[in-house]
């Protein structure tokens, strides 16, 4: 992949709303070329979507809990872990699924409105799946940093003095 494409991906990964004009100036290419690059990267599934990082704890009256669940499963001949993973990741309350090395097999991130809701998902939906051997649920108490962004830190926090030589 070209160096400029990698730079473009890194810029968009940090700020999905950065406009083409700004990007084109930064990468020293035309706006049309930025368009083309983005289309190409979308087509190649290098870019899968554009989302916004929300700190829900700052949203008034919003209730929500999140949990990370360690799941042990029995892999199935021929399809390995993929089939069971797909059974799990299709639930809308599941936000992320990773196949892990180490003590368990799948790491599942789940969000719900209440602890009860998440618990019910685990006991009713997840642990009852055929090949699931065990689950360990960890509720998230506080998010400090997510996807490279520190939550309690504004981006306008410049500690430098105004004019220096």
């Amino acid at each position, binding site marked *: 992949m070209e160096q400029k494409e990698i*730079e473009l991906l890194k810029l968009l990964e940090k700020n999905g709303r950065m406009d083409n004009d700004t990007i084109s100036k930064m990468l020293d290419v035309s706006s049309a070329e930025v368009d083309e690059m983005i289309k190409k990267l979308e087509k190649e599934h290098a870019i899968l979507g554009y989302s916004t990082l929300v700190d829900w704890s700052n949203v008034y009256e919003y209730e929500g809990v999140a949990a990370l669940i360690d799941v042990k499963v029995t892999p199935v001949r021929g399809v390995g872990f993929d089939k069971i993973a797909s059974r799990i990741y299709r639930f809308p309350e599941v936000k992320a699924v990773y196949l892990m090395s180490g003590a368990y097999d799948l790491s599942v991130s789940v969000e719900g409105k209440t602890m009860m809701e998440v618990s019910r998902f685990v006991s009713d939906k997840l642990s009852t799946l055929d090949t699931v051997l065990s689950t360990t649920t960890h509720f998230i108490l506080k998010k400090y940093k997510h996807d490279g962004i520190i939550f309690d830190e504004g981006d306008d926090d410049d500690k430098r*003095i105004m004019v*220096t030589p």
Partner: protein
Amino acid sequence: MSESYLANHVKELQPSGIRKFFDLASQMENVISLGVGEPDFVTPWNVIEASYHSLEQGYTAYTANAGLIELREEIGKYLRETFSISYNPEDQILVTVGASQAIDLALRAIVNAGDEVIVVEPCFVSYSPTISLAGGVSVSVSATADNEFKVTPEQIEAAITPRTKAIVLCSPNNPTGSVLSKEELYEIAQVVQKHDLIVLSDEIYAELAYDEAVSSIASVDGMEERTIVISGFSKSFAMTGWRLGYAVGPVAIMQAMTKIHQYTMMCAPTMAQHGALEALRHGNESVREMKTSYRQRRNFVVKALNEMGLSCHLPGGAFYVFPSIKETGYSSEEFAQRLLEEERVAVVPGQVFGESGEGYIRCSYATSIKQLDEAMKRMNRFVKRNSETNEPTV
């Protein structure tokens, strides 16, 4: 107490022109500052953590006058690998309190009363005052826009007199961002050798070059014995507040500088030296990332300035651009003052860096792209408005 108590040579020193803008800008709200001469990054975390750790371990005492030997060894290794110049950590490398102290020590070590030292303007505001404080006379040579603010060997030669002792060079340059190529350094070196001068080579921005790698004039044949290379951690590792720099050079000069340093400073701060050690050992990736970000912002700002009619060459290094504001008909100072008052953008008028900076402004792009974008919009508005009403008379 009356001013008459002050030393004459200090009374004669002019306060820096930058001060005035600092005072003006800091009284206002909602100002976007492109006037900051330091990185917008916070020091890489591993460096901060290493410094913490050194404090926890109780490294709170003085170090050797010249600095921690491990640090001097790492500096030696870095210079050898990056610029192919080689210095003995035992007696040719001195760790200082910022590059600023290194400049001061170098000048005090070599300048006799009345000796002339050539400075290439526009340049960092401290060179001339530091030369005066060392008892020398600063002689200005003006680099001009038609040569992308790079000094020529002919200009240097024309300024040399029997009293000329040294020349201060800074590449990549503050305030213009210009970088002297290997060939240009070679040509300058020939003049320097012909007239038996010493070079103070301020290479504090050497890591921040975006198009081609920077060369050190000390790497030119015959120059190692007459060059004092000055650098530090402030710009490359975003460590300005740590105040840590270094100087390397011929043994006799480094011994003299170390002697002054020993009497006036003892040693550079110990915790900062431990941080710097980590920076040199494991800081490459951070430098690479910061460099990519500066390059992107440089491209952005140069494009935006040229589009709004402030012509500006693409500087090879540092984090400054030095566009011409002559189209507006204002002087640098008027431009900067009005821009600040009308649009709340702080830039530094070019003439504070020397007469040949008149007609230009220094904009630092070491600020977030969001802020830069807004600053360019405001400046564009300002330029459009002022070019109409302030058409230069023909």
